[in-house]
């Protein structure tokens, strides 16, 4: 089972996929602010790289998983990362 995945389309037209759940608290990164190939968590100031999932500043301390994306004939295909998901305290994969 995988936690929810967020798929992003940047203003430049590139497509990316990250685990949707912030590592600090249960917030959906899909609702975050996308700029310069990063997404800012909608709740606090941490931002995550859309390509690697790495985090820049607290309060989140761990990055999220980034997934491989291919766009074929207008369809977005995501290949799940095999790493273990990093979920915030209290959130479990259903």
């Amino acid at each position: 089972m995988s936690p929810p995945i967020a798929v992003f389309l940047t203003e430049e037209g590139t497509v990316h996929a990250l685990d949707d759940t912030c590592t600090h608290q249960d917030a959906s990164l899909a609702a975050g602010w996308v700029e310069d190939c990063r997404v800012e968590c909608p709740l606090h100031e941490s931002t995550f790289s859309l390509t690697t999932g790495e985090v820049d500043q607290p309060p989140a301390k761990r990055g999220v998983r980034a997934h491989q994306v291919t766009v074929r004939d207008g369809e977005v295909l995501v290949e799940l990362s095999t790493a273990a998901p990093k979920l915030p305290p209290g959130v479990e994969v259903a």
Partner: protein
Amino acid sequence: MIIDQLDTPLTGTSLKPTPAGVAYTDPEIFIREQAEIFEKMWNAVLRADSLASPGQWRTVTVGREEIIVVRTRKAGIKAYLNVCRHRGMRVCTTAEGRSKTLQCGYHAWTYALEGELVAAPNLTSMPDVDRGEHGLKTVHVREWLGYIWLCVSPAAGSSAPPSFEETVMTEVSTRFGEVQSLENYGIEKLRVGQTRRYEVAANWKLIIENFMECYHCATIHPELTEVIPEFAQGWASQAQDEIHGASFGAQVEGFTVDGSAGVAALPAIAEAQDRKYYAITVRPQVFINTVPDHVIFHRMYPVSAAKTIVECDWLFLPEVVEKQLDVSRSVELFHRVNLQDFEACEQTQPSMSSKAYDDGGALVPSEHHIAEFHQWWAQQIGPFARGR
């Protein structure tokens, strides 16, 4: 006792009655005015260019509500009641700011600039919560004359606000002849040269009544009467049905504190509007004064029965503001007029609760048009109980 506060005078009488003193002091009447007048009508609150870029917001008060006015990324200017839908904390807690979202500082419910709830701690584990439905409550917005106008009720979505065209624009056109003749001044393209904020210890109706008449001009406005000598006769620009342009004195070069020349005239004004002063009241809270080279735009915010905040903008051509031309003599003239008027209103307010004013005061013929304002006011708030 329930009374009809406006008895029509016998025809031919010089004096018409004003409302009783209680109309200017009673907190319950004031609440009714907030609910029935200010919250139901369109109020001008901000210059649209004061929210220049997406994410910029300001808080304003209309009636009993605090409102966030924000420039969004995708939907132009929007306005919301400044009340978190979670447990009610103020979402924005300062007068202005710039942010990517509107986030409540209590439990971090986070709203998009466009209003919907986008995030909240643990929201993902509450899939039954509809984010649109729990967004900030919307307030109706219009832009006109370069100002943002708000209408608080009815809540957006429940039913339509009063038609802006039929209320605000019609009010302007019945006073200004036609909207066009006001549009000659191109107010939407002007820029703010200066803004002043006055805290006036007087009921808002005293301020409107004062603004509508010029019977006081020769007594309290020496500088204004120098520039516009006909004001000494006591007839205001708005005393007749259609607005009357009040002429500058023969030696007067411009609408400035010493009658010296102002800056370059606004390009589109009609010939008949040159060397003239016009004034209108847009109920319930806007006064517009136009002169050939600038426009003076007042907005009133009643705070209590005995306190009103007035903000006054002096608007000039963009190049005048950009080149930082000296407009101090233009600003000084109406700033003095404001201080003189507000002082008179403040000296009147305490008498409103005196026995001597139980039955109100009197309007002389050059003030009779104010009775129409009183009738309108009485219609909006309905009958009230008089008591001391």
